[in-house]
């Protein structure tokens, strides 16, 4: 298995007619993702050229899910409409098929829009939100697989390492590190670096713990908030599989926002040093340098008798 997204998940693209939507939908089709169509208000009935696939477009998520029985949607709509797109998807998945996975790639959504969207998803049974401002989720398959997002598909291979990360390109770095020690991935989840998001570290860790395919986890954090500390506490109490980590931002000065809206050390809280200390105390071995994640993972696999 894998977590949340199977290799053959049926996926809708919200904002499929936009530049970003069409570009990434095409890349997903190339990878092997089963794109079943898309949604753009007032463009229902059109088709979008995704190279080897002419994808149908619906006006609403309800129509699209009814027609395709999609398992998941991925959102590329502009920031000002993204909060509403999440709420529409949550209602539609809940109403038509009692659940679904929503992956929001959009960067720059107003925080209070996300507060409302996350609260709405929280109150809608069976619906999971990943992101926003994230690379998405990928479950590599034996041939192809399901890539829902913007990550470069070709760097992945099916395997037994679960990856969860706040950062985009650092996730790719972690993937490359697993490959450097001949390990593939079960599922890789980018949870995003915004202050208010859907799925968090603990959701992912808990799902990896319960997933047969996953035998070890790489967790990539960054400065800001205390999600890493809470995750570390959860790992200490609940996780039986080895977890290794890395936290970006050791050199970040307090009070300065480092790109991601959530990546800021405020009031002396949320430093990388505190996070690494909490993770190490919970038995999560941390690399000092992302180029060492592979080596640290290999040692942990050996220590657990997995290599």
């Amino acid at each position, binding site marked *: 298995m894998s977590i949340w997204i199977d290799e053959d998940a049926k996926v809708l693209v919200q904002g499929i007619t936009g530049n970003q939507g069409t570009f990434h939908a095409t890349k997903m089709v190339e990878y092997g993702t089963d794109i079943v169509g898309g949604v753009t208000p007032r463009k229902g009935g059109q088709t979008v050229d995704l190279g080897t696939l002419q994808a149908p477009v619906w006006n609403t998520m309800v129509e699209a899910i009814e027609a395709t029985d999609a398992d998941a949607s991925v959102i590329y709509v502009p920031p000002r409409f993204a909060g509403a797109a999440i709420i529409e998807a949550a209602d539609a998945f809940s109403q038509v098929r009692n659940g679904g996975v929503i992956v929001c790639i959009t960067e720059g959504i107003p925080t209070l829009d996300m507060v409302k969207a996350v*609260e709405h998803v929280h109150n809608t049974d069976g619906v999971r939100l990943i992101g926003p401002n994230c690379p998405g989720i990928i479950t590599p398959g034996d041939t192809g697989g399901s890539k829902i997002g913007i*990550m470069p598909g070709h760097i992945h291979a099916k395997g037994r390492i679960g990856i969860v990360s706040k*950062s985009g390109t650092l*996730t790719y770095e972690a993937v490359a590190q697993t490959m450097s020690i001949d390990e593939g991935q079960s599922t890789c989840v980018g949870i995003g670096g915004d202050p*208010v998001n859907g799925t968090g570290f603990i959701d992912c860790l808990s799902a990896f713990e319960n997933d047969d395919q996953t035998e070890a986890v790489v967790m990539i954090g960054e400065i800001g908030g205390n999600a890493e500390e809470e995750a570390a506490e959860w790992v200490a109490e609940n996780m039986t599989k080895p977890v290794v980590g890395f936290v970006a*931002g*050791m050199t*970040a000065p307090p009070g300065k926002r480092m790109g991601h809206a959530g990546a800021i050390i405020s009031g002396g809280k949320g430093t990388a040093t505190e996070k690494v200390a909490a993770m190490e105390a919970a038995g999560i071995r941390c690399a000092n340098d*992302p180029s060492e994640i592979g080596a640290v993972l290999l040692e942990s696999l050996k220590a657990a008798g997995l290599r």
Partner: protein
Amino acid sequence: MNIHEYQGKQLFRDAGLAVQEGVHCTTVEQALAAYDSLGGNVVAVKSQIHAGGRGKGTLYDPESGDVVMEGGVKIAFNREDVENYAQNILGNILVTKQTGEEGKLVSNLYVEGGCKIAHEYYLAILVDREEKMPLIMASCEGGVDIEEVAEETPEAIFKVHVDPSVGLLPEQAEGLANSLGLTGLSIDSFVENVSGLFDLFVSKDCAMVEINPMVRTEDDKIVLLDAKVGFDENALFRHPDIVELRDLSEEEPTEVRAKASDLSYVKLDGNIGCLVNGAGLAMATMDVIKLYGGEPANFLDVGGGANEEQVTTAFGIIMEDPNVKGILVNIFGGIMRCDIIARGVIAATQALALEDPLVVRLVGTNFEEGRRILAESGLNIHTAETLAEGAKMIVELVGGDSQ
């Protein structure tokens, strides 16, 4: 995006909240006229900069570096005081705990009517990322460093989470008033002001509202004596009135220019410039430079889809920092193709006649092509396979390992 206290007070005033009368001034003459217009009573003369800790800050002469006055917020009892304080503040550098050593030039003053204070409180509204909800925090210990209070006596800070779709409920506001030990008339006054502030927080998409101090006057009224207001940059598109309040002179000019090109740049103190795609990887690149004995000169994220032009702009921004003695480019090509980055790097180094050492690490989509383009350029560009290798290389090239 942050605004000045006087601008925040005007937003409060427009929302019908309890603030003292006050006048924004940029000259000593205006400050004196403000004193007269406020009735010749006791006033506060307040330096306006985008940083806290003004009251305990120190003003320096920008030319000589001599101390001009202790304290950037002063109580003036007469006209002479106002003249003296305004002279000492305007055109001088205010250094506070939050400004860093270089401080901030003060070009704006706020002259505000005084009031008879019975007690000082602390009030703040922000989004709590753990609970994913706005949070109102209040404390009886106003006027002091709230971070110290949070550290030493966290039980002295009262917290209420508020769903923005519902708004602040009267019982929540009254509960906070009770926790603060308010009685009589001041309860109603508090409920009215905190409810108004919460509505303002939501309607204007604030990132933070902090009132330190909020005071109870001798006649049992609540007055918002401070106003530190910040806005969510992502929501500015729906608040053109707030964008008008931006004071670019309070922001790092290079950071402002970077933002205009969709680049995220933060200047630091080291000598190794970094150009990276992705915020997490950009932070990690800085960390690894430090790990191998160097000092990063900046954080720079070119984003996920940077083009040749953005790469050139990014190089230009990095090179403006006179401390930069070498540059490390670290790109994990996903959506961004490494051959395009390689061409951008070559174009930028030629356009800027770059002489400092340059190490480029390209990995991901089309990396072989990218490396070939760099190798065949005939330029003095070093290439690295891993981040660690690239970091060690650039540290050695700038001779940065001082240990």
